[in-house]
């Protein structure tokens, strides 16, 4: 692909600012896709035919395969993150200690299963060769997510029989089952989603086979293995049919397993881990505790699931709704009247003059603050990078971060401190934009509580920002949130991040039509976000892989 196109894509802002002459749309905020989609997209490969299961997928898969819910991956070597997500297809490998971790888990899980009811994994219970073969066929197909080849069946039958002498114990069936599972859980055919797709290419595209499609579907929408329905459709070749693919997408999205995927995506996109172990001055903030992290995370995840699943509403409502979910501790910070418990979350309406949507939630505000004061810079950078998906560099090294103290000259508030500190021309290049976003949140202190005064001075939350093609002036975070809710950059960022997470790779210029289409749909009143997630399963990239030359 042309390099310049890639570079343009790196900055989605360029679509609206740098390249307005060619790509700007017919109506404000909607990208004209006619040129982008005129040439059919080429499928983009995740960069590998061996996509290793993420740790979450491993846990979910052994749960669905073996009925074990112990989350073995908590003892695995942690994966490194790439592009903000921990599921990069090319980044995930079995290296260093992980092979040992897999072995340990396979040994533990297989002995656990063999000690329990074998009927959970075996269709028969006789100590016969016929039963051994039946077990290998049925369990093997579920473990490898495709039927075993004859050679594989023979290999595992040999192993099954060898178990009788290799393992201690008296029950040959249990021993055979144990060793077979121990090996299959370490097999590359289990640990990777293997996508060999050997069909003949058409137009330089190779259609994935039906079993590979079943796994792509289930791992994208459930982070787990296919269920019986998907296996049945794969057997009959049904998943190469576009209508069936859509029907299954709808079915999978209605399953609770999809809710966990949506949580996983939002946790990573919004960096909710940052809310862990917040160190706050409790003398100043007696209603706060660092142990509230799970509650803050739960609040945001439930709020987003409500918008996506429970009361489906438009993308814009992420930034405009004036309700949230609170437990007792959060209710105190929000100053919501009523009776709440620590363990139960209730949907509550917040004062629309104080709160509006995701960006006025406690979790974001508190995790982008210091021990005693809020941090407009961290809040602004978060909005720019994560919410709007715009490039924003790191500060140069060797900076003295000390702010001028409150009380010196006309410095009364955090805004005054930051404005004075970043006023030199070298700083202002970036901070003009960063501060504009960050200052909008001046109504929220270091733990996200609402305030109108800081140090007995009125906080100034006004400002203006360039959002896409328009400059938007705002009075406070509520008005800024409203502007963001309809900003094309916000929709594109959300769509791009879903594409990265869903396809486990970086975005690419071949994705432009898909991404802009997804983003435009998000801008349509009444369009359900769930449908945009579902749209990930109908693209060319999802159904095909490019022809690759194998060196």
């Amino acid at each position, binding site marked *: 692909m042309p390099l310049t196109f890639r570079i343009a894509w790196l900055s989605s802002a360029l679509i609206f600012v740098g390249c307005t002459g060619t790509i700007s749309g017919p109506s404000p905020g909607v990208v004209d896709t006619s040129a982008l989609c005129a040439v059919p997209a080429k499928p983009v490969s995740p960069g590998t035919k061996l996509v290793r299961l993420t740790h979450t997928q491993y846990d979910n898969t052994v749960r669905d395969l073996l009925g074990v819910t112990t989350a073995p991956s908590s003892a695995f*070597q942690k994966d*490194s993150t790439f592009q903000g997500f921990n599921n990069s297809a090319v980044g995930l490998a079995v*290296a260093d200690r992980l092979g040992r971790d897999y072995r340990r888990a396979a040994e533990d899980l297989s002995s656990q299963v063999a000690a329990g009811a074998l009927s959970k994994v075996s269709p028969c219970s006789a100590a016969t060769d016929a039963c051994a073969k039946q077990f290998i066929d049925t369990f093997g197909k579920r473990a490898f997510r495709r039927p075993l080849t004859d050679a594989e069946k023979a290999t595992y039958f040999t192993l099954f029989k060898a178990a009788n002498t290799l393992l201690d114990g008296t029950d040959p069936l249990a021993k055979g089952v144990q060793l077979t599972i121990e090996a299959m859980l370490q097999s590359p055919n289990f640990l990777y989603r293997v996508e060999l797709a050997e069909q003949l290419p058409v137009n330089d595209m190779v259609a994935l086979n039906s079993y590979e499609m079943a796994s792509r579907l289930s791992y994208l929408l459930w982070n787990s293995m296919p269920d019986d329905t998907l296996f049945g459709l794969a057997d009959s070749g049904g998943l190469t049919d576009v209508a069936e693919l859509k029907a299954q997408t709808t079915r999978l999205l209605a399953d609770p397993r999809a809710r966990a995927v949506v949580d996983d995506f939002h946790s990573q996109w919004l960096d909710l881990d940052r809310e862990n172990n917040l160190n706050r001055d409790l003398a100043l903030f007696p209603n706060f505790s660092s142990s509230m992290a799970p509650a803050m995370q739960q609040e945001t995840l439930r709020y987003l699931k409500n918008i996506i699943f429970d009361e489906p509403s438009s993308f814009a409502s992420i930034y405009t709704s004036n309700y949230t979910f609170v437990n007792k501790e959060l209710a105190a910070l929000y100053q919501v009247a009523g009776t709440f418990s620590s363990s139960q979350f209730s949907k509550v309406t917040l004062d629309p003059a104080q709160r509006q949507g995701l960006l006025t939630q406690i979790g974001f505000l508190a995790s982008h603050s210091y021990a005693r004061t809020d941090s407009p810079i961290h809040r602004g950078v978060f909005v720019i990078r994560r919410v709007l998906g715009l490039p924003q560099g790191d500060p140069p090294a060797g900076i003295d971060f000390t702010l001028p103290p409150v009380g010196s000259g006309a410095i009364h508030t955090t805004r005054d401190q930051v404005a004075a500190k970043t006023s030199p021309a070298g700083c202002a290049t970036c901070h003009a934009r960063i501060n504009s976003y960050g200052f909008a949140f001046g109504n929220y202190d270091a733990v996200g509580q609402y305030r109108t005064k800081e140090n007995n001075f009125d906080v100034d939350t006004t400002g203006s920002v360039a959002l896409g093609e328009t400059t938007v002036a705002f009075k406070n975070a509520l008005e800024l949130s409203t502007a963001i809710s309809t900003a094309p950059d916000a929709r594109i960022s959300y769509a791009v991040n879903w594409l990265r997470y869903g396809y486990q790779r970086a975005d690419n210029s071949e994705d432009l039509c898909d991404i802009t289409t997804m983003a435009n749909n998000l801008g349509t009143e009444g369009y359900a976000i769930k449908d945009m997630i579902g749209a990930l399963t109908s693209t060319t990239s999802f159904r095909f892989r490019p022809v690759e030359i194998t060196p």
Partner: protein
Amino acid sequence: MNRLTRRFFLRGAGGIAIGLPFLETLVPRTARAAPADVAKRFVAFFECNGANMDKFFPVTPYGALTSASFTGTSLAPLAGLESKIIVPRGIRKVPNGFNIGGQTPVGCDHQNGMGGKLTAQQLAGADHYANGISVDQYMASKINPSGRPSMTLKVGQKGSGVTSVISYSAAGKPVQGENNPWLAFRDFMVTAPTGPSTAQRIYDRQKSVLDVVKSEMDTLKTKGLSAADKAKLDLHYTSIRELEMAMVGMGLPACTLPTARTSEIQAVANVEAEANYKAIGQMQMDVLAIALACGNTRVASLQWNNGAGGPTFKWDGLNHPYHHHAISHNSTTDGGSNTGVGGADYKQLLFEIDTWYGKQFRYLCDKLSAYTEADGKTVLDNSAIVWMNELSDGLEHNFMDMPYVIAGSCGGYLKTGQYVKLTKQATTKQLVDAPHNKLLTTLINAVGVTENGAPVTNFGAYGDPGEYSELKA
């Protein structure tokens, strides 16, 4: 080859000599690269957030260390070990970072301190991982039995980004450390009651599974995989084949700890709890010491917490109000700088932290000194255990005058017992010479790594070629 030449004896605390590994006959010939003499080892003992630079270095002049050298400094816990210690002075980290010297690096200083210390590389890419292999993994690929990776251990929370990792298997390939001593130990330990027949049965079973896995990988490789995917399977196979070697490798019968200690290590429930920081750290060092002694690994890194991380020290008589990173900035929080730590003297708190790490460094040295090898020296004598830090002055985020302490002569390669200035400049806080990559090159040669039969001349992408002759015996 005479088997006896490969035999080496271990004398643990109990003074029991242990002989040849019983399963050695099962080890493939290629894995038995016979050591001509006793193995040399390297350990990176890694502290984060910088040091109190006023009280870290010896108080006696350059030259021989004396019993007065460490008095009143963070090195006081090393008293008595002076003859086995080198304190090199004036080393600067390369690339410079700190926005000084025209090398404005990618990423912040903490990222550069973590990513560059063992690699002497710039950071790269959107994720700011180091742009090359780290010295421990490089050494391991050359001298570890069957090329087994460096043993990467960690104390504290696991992380997933550049500030949580110091070891790299290649450019952009961080190796996250294992923070659970039981999982680290379980890979290679042999418990006392386990006799040869039990180990043999485990070996036979695992081998039968591995054979199946290997055959499936071989089949996959015939299915039109890219070179990268084939390499991925090779990497995977290496990762599990290591187990086979670990099971039957050299010194297998000695890879054990006292039963009571093994039980303690197995029993720890929460390895990330700060309250367990010291206990986990010492367990990791016990595991590390036996792994080095019994030949499971010759190279390791022990990383204490993360760059810009904690913990909050509340044990061993310390009751710090804030966590290590905040204190290093004379602040109450990660983002603050020089705002004070609630009335306390932050440099005193840092001194206490450095001294605490000095005690842990001593603990490891003592563990290694307890093992006497076939040449009559201790494992410590045959090793270079290097205490290093992410930064020098944490408040300044400085990369000049980096704190280093080396224990052990690495089998006589290094000249111990000295405090030595390596920069030719008047001040040790300098950016002209004495790059840290030369120290890495020196250590690489100290453990006996060669390239095409010749000494290694330059490691990393920054700094200068050559070794520090001042450090060599």
